[in-house]
């Protein structure tokens, strides 16, 4: 299991390819499920020009490790990779990657969704958007 918090843009697809070749045993994981969250240029009816993602260093990693470990155990995953951006982002940049690896598809699909939902509701990240009219904190996540 690997958790990473990046202050710079990253390529989630390359990260998955690299992780598979460096961490996964050949022929073991029959299923890989991947979720990538990307910054939009709109929210709640407004154009969004940029965003700053703040986090709580130390607690972020601790919380992510706990929730990923829980899903690995619950779904008997072979492995999981989570990467999350912080700092200043522009629309089109990727925010989050959740990749899960298991013998069969159900565990990988279910765990990927579960990790993503747990991350959104418990990992200490906060978004502040830049609009043409100024800045605002995002107060709640979208439902799904």
């Amino acid at each position, binding site marked *: 299991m690997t958790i990473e918090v990046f202050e710079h843009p990253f390529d989630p697809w390359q990260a998955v390819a690299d992780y598979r070749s460096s961490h996964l045993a050949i022929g073991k994981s029959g299923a890989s499920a991947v979720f990538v*969250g990307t910054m939009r240029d709109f929210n709640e009816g407004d154009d969004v020009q940029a965003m700053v*993602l*703040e*986090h*709580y260093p*130390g*607690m972020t990693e*601790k*919380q992510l490790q706990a929730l990923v470990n829980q899903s690995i155990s619950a779904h008997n995953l072979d492995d999981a990779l989570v990467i*999350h951006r912080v700092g200043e982002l522009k629309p089109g940049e990727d*925010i*989050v990657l959740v990749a899960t690896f298991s013998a069969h598809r159900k565990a990988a699909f279910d765990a990927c969704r579960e990790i*993503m939902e747990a*991350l*959104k*509701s*418990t*990992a*200490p*990240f*906060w*978004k*502040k958007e830049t609009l043409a009219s100024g800045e605002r*904190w*995002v*107060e*709640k*996540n979208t439902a799904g």
Partner: protein
Amino acid sequence: MSINVRFFASLKERIGSAALEIDAQGITTARDVWTSASGQEADEEMLVAINKEYAALDRTVADGDEVAFFPPVTGG
């Protein structure tokens, strides 16, 4: 005898500080820490972490603890 207090996101802006240290004397719970550090009533939507783990507002704190206050999280 002190408690390290941290604020994040909109609460950091509301308080005007990211971190401060308060005297632990007379402090029993995270709610006491908030009141002492902010001079405001606790907002029930606010989240609390003690030593980087989620905790209830009425959880007991100890000398040397790091107590953080922040709004609902919005990552992902």
